[in-house]
């Protein structure tokens, strides 16, 4: 882990010194346990701020949208897939990017740890394998693989798919993980159970839009929930409007989502927002054999047409 960090700093320093990039986008140490803050570094003397550990769950592709500078960006597997998606969707130019790929071993689910240890948590130390949790007067050690974000635990694309150089050796990809276990569970429910499940799932939503804004895919200049003419969605806490927002947002991400988990990580009230996007990821995979952001050479299934489409709805 610290090897990654040293390498990231080394690359960043080189690129800034030789002027091949204007800025490096990465993470710096946050002010709370399990929090790192996305940052930009413009001067070689600030490179020392850069960190890498298992608290870098924010998707940095989100910070590239429409930027015109030459940028070096630190990218784990999912970030790199969103960078691919950004390039395909003309939100960033490949030639303006220097991608520092980071083979990833998963990000820690900070919400789970806070929920278990409470807001009085003092410190969480990461030695690569284990987390040492310090609370008032006691300490506890957790195996990191037991407390990964659920999307990371079931991730099969930990290595960056697009990079200019790597911050470390590629890691073995996980095999035999069930990516859609939660989706299957919901799919098996009766309509009444599903209704209840989604009602319950979304009941804490405060419409802060952290899920939307943490997502690199949500770059519309005006989101449909913010349109006033016509106003598609009401602005109150009416549950129908809240559901409309979440469902439509998920559909806007269909075939584009890399399951990076940034939405779920950002939610201040702990909604499992990925329940929606996972279902659509599963559909995209089953119907089109598609996983978002794996290649620059193919457009997502929902914005393309092929004459040999297996379905006959369009013929």
């Amino acid at each position: 882990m610290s090897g990654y960090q040293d390498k990231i700093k080394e690359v960043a320093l080189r690129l800034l010194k030789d002027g091949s990039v204007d800025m490096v986008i990465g993470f710096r140490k946050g002010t709370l346990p399990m929090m790192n803050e996305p940052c930009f570094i413009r001067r070689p003397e600030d490179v020392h701020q850069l960190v890498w550990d298992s608290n870098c769950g924010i998707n940095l592709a989100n910070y590239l949208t429409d930027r015109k500078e030459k940028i070096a960006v630190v990218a784990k597997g999912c970030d790199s897939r969103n960078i691919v998606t950004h390039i395909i969707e003309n939100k960033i130019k490949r030639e303006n990017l220097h991608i520092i790929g980071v083979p990833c071993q998963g990000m820690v689910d900070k919400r789970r740890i806070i929920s278990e240890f409470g807001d009085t948590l003092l410190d969480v130390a990461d030695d690569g394998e284990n987390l040492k949790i310090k609370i008032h007067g006691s300490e506890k050690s957790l195996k990191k693989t037991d407390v990964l974000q659920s999307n990371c635990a079931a991730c099969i694309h930990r290595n960056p798919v697009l990079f200019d150089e790597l911050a470390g050796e590629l890691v073995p990809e996980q095999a035999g993980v069930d990516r859609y276990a939660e989706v299957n569970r919901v799919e098996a429910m009766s309509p009444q159970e599903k209704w209840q499940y989604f009602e319950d799932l979304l009941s804490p939503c405060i419409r802060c839009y952290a899920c939307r804004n943490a997502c690199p895919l949500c770059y519309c200049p005006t989101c449909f929930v913010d349109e006033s003419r016509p106003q598609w969605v009401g602005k109150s806490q009416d549950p129908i409007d809240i559901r409309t927002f979440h469902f439509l947002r998920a559909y806007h991400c269909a075939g584009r989502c890399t399951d990076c988990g940034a939405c779920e990580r950002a939610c201040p009230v702990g909604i499992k927002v990925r329940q929606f996007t996972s279902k659509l990821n599963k559909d995209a995979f089953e119907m089109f054999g598609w996983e978002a952001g794996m290649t620059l050479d193919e457009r997502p299934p929902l914005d393309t047409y092929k004459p040999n489409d297996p379905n006959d709805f369009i013929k």
Partner: protein
Amino acid sequence: MKVFTIDKKEWALGIEKAKSAYQVLGPVKEKEWHCFKALGKDEQPDMTYTNTRLSPKFLVQPQTEPMFTYTLDESRPDHHILKEVQEDVCPKAVIGIRPCDAAAFLLVKRNFDAPQYQDPYWLKAYNSMTFVGLACNDPCPTCFCTSAGCGPFHEAGLDVLLVDSGDRFLAKSLTDKGIALLAAAGWNSLADDAGKIEAMKQAAESRIASRISTDRLKAKETTHIYDAPFWEDTAFSCINCGTCTYSCPTCWCFDIQDENRGNTGVRLRNWDSCMFPLFTMHGTGHNPRGAKMQRVRQRFMHKLKYYVDKYDNGIQCVGCGRCIRLCPVNIDIRKVCNQMNDYDPAACVCPA
């Protein structure tokens, strides 16, 4: 001001008694986190909680609140004329609110109870409440209340201060409203060790290690801090969600919307956030705070400079730490406040 002692064995009974005179609200754990709820019969507040996930401001200012109703049916004589909504103004007892969250209402009150205009919705709700605070014996690491004009045993904004003293609560009555509530609950045994509160208060305050500096904010020129170069760095990571503003006990901004169903409708007010571009967008599309950095700056300038200048009564923050804990990208008001407080345009060496 008197200090009563409440044996924890008598606590539940007192709460039940209070329910005959008040609607009683208290912290209850729902899913993973605590939230204030109206308590039904035999339902008790969880007085062992740390703090609620979101602030209890919604008790006085709900996220969505009807203001008026109307009919658009032109066959009705009162069509297109707004009618007042009947509000629930029954007496409410808010049990176990943390001192910072109660103090926050006083800060917000300056906005809603201004010399020229008074907001009837906010004031009626606020005035219907009796606040029974629960002193913080174990503040969180992100609490910085003692340097934000507040504290773990802060009394302003409370009607009663409760101090958890092991097998009993010490209850300090602070207002007539508080005395009435203690009487309704039947808590009338005077404590013979009231002095204990002061020692516990000092112990709790000494546990708060996190501090901000605010002493130089007022003297600074608004335009100097406004034009400071650090805002670009502060704002970079911000995703412009409403988490900080919606979780904040002292953020009050709102939007007004008409919602129709068929021929009837309701004029609502909803929470709004200075983080959202739409908040300030003109009809023409012009936006005075169109860029993310401008919105981030507005949030901090409002709390830490404009409010300070407008009311001359400290910052618009009680140090509860929610925005720090919940911000998805770790923007920390403590850091920003200190940067603002320390900023000296003459000494600034801007990065090339």
